[in-house]
């Protein structure tokens, strides 16, 4: 068994609006001199520390947890899962 760090990023699906990101873009970033920025999206990240046999089972276990416990709503959001060996 190895200890893995699994990062779960939850963000709105493409095309679904993101008021928080838009506010940061329009009312903060673009008000300064950072004119090269064209978009900002907000997301929530959960960092799991998990003990599993390999990378693949760490990923699938975390995905399973997120689905089962409704950590995100698949109608609205997508999740990206990145696994790192500790």
């Amino acid at each position, binding site marked *: 068994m190895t200890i893995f760090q699994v990062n779960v990023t939850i963000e709105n699906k493409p095309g679904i609006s993101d*008021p928080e990101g838009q506010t940061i873009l329009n009312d903060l970033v673009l008000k300064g001199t950072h004119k090269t920025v064209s978009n900002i999206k907000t997301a929530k990240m959960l960092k799991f520390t998990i003990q599993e046999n390999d990378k693949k089972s760490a990923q699938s276990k975390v995905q399973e947890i997120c689905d089962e416990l409704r950590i995100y709503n698949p*109608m609205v959001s997508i999740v990206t899962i990145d696994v790192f060996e500790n």
Partner: protein
Amino acid sequence: MSLEEQELAELKSKIGRDPTSTELQIVAAEWSEHCSYKSSKRHLKMLPMDGPLVINEKGYDSGVLDVGDGYVVTAHIESHNHPSAVEPYGGAATGVGGVIRDILSAGTRPIAIFDGLRFGDIETDLQARWLFKNAVTGIADYGNCLGIPTIGGEVEFDECYKNYALVDVAALGFGKKENLIKNHAKKDDIVVLMGGSTGRDGIGGSQFASDSLESEDRSAVQIPDPFIEKLIIEAVLQARNDGLIHAMKDLGGGGLSCAISETADALDIGIEMDVDKVHTRESDMTPDEIMVSESQERMLIVTSKIKLKKLEEICKKFRIGCSVIGLVKFDNQVHIKKGEKTVANLSADVVANATLLDLPSKEPSYLKTIEDEQKFKPISDYSALMMKLLASPNIASKIWVYGQYDHEVGIRTVVKPGTDASVLRLDNGKYLSAKIDGNPKQCYINPREGAIGCFEEACRNVVCTGAKPIGMLDHLQFGNPKDPEIFWTFLESLKGLTDFAKFFKIPCVGGKVSLYNETPTGSIKPTPVIGVIGLIDKKPSVPQKISQDDCLLIIGDTKNELGGSEYFEYIHKFVGGKCPTVNFEDSKKHMTSVLDIIDKNLIKSAHDCSKGGLAVAVSEICMTNQIGCKVSLDKVPGEKLDVDRILFSESHSRYLLSFDKKNISMIEEILKKNKVSFEQIGQFGGNQIQFTNASKLIIDLDLKKAHEIWLHALPNLVLHGKKSV
């Protein structure tokens, strides 16, 4: 999104050619049940909509009532059932946003929000728990951010809403009569779209709401943005004060398609608009998508070219988008262009007026035997049963819900949630009271009497605050209307409401019909939700603390009416029996008497008897006042009944009055004069809630223990999955 075959044929014959793809999208949105009311409109006309206080203007999305001294109150009710069943947080929040904009579009400031929420059995169903928790958070987050108090509502759970949610939102507005928007348009006027940008969210929402919810087709998700909504409210009200608005409409179901065609039709004008002028979130949107997008927080405004500059300045000040998207014409056409190219050109009358259906109806077969009662085992321990009822999700205190809502912002709230109805202070020294009520259990057993019961309950609730009912909102929620049995239940409910409204001269000032509320296991029970608005000219009845030796009096007979009661359904798991009916004459006498007694300042509080019957109503008074009470069941007026029936029957037109015993003779005098059936049934004091029958103690509850259970049962269940009893 599509039209049915015969609707397509009809459209072709009306316009004399094949429609373009954009035209198809526009018509499909506008002819959907959600926007056109095609199944129900023909019948809704039976409701009385006029009254001495009602102000009718063309193109209003909300009802307007004159409350005197140059002030008006506006009211509207909407639901967001389908979106909330998919995404409870966003669905419930955007539902609040939609109804707020309906209030705003008459030119009044929204001052209160009400929510009626219904879900599956949260004791066993985790999905229902998830929906409930998130819908409440959605409403709280949205309403609280807007600075509009959420001051009332109701929450109910029933098997029939498994995997589904009913989220009803009502709102009240207040303003000066002279500031009402008189919807009109002049030559050379322009059409402005104001507010949030148009994106791909909620595409096909109105069509979606007009279909039964299939498991996979759940694409219409809208993301709430209360801060933009708040800016829109302030910008619109300033534009109103500056006289910049000729006509206004909010964008709801059907998006631009419906707003443009309904505005053109209502004002008898034509509108030519260019989709390229619409401020969009994504650059590659097609005209079809722009026309039917249901992105939230947008308003359509008709103004003149001269006033535009000022309007743009206001939008700039509030940092909200504002684009001139079209022109007013006088050809009654809805003409949609993309740049120079025409993508749709239809008569507004054709688009806005779908052919109304005359659907067949048939009495449902289940009703033939529904009134037959089963025999139940006698109850051995009523005290234990009472504790179980007090902990049941439908009866337990809802403080966990309304405690999350800011109900005081705006400092108008005089009587706060948790009582029968909340009361708001108006600027002209009068007070406004309002409540929404529904009862699907009784409406299932008898759609007509059940609907009347909801109406009377809402009236009772506002009467308990000393208010006279002046207007009603109806929200009729049913399953698939193409099923004749379901359509019959719709018609019966509507007829019942009409009879009651006519008898009491309470006009219907607004409403909504939501059909196709189906879950994977079948149709929901008939769920009309009725809102009643009451006006108090002098002083509201603010509940005062009950003290030792105060008296408890009941008005109205308790009848053998356990059908659809919490006792039958929660304790015995039995659906059936005879549901309570309202005697109109008695109901009127009781209302007048209670109002008279409150006016003479003779009582400390009035409480209506409804869910859970007399036993629960008395316990609620005791628990909220932290005082015991001893009630003699043998004194309760009405025919002679078994103990369980007296305790738990949910008969209507009953009120519980608590008062200082020195007032008893004056109260009795009023009640006798009005020939009202009443009896003094108990006295407050001590720390026990007790019910006796022929001097035998039937129920004996420790006040503190009962209160603890009643108060914490709901959060224990929702947050910890723990049953309290």
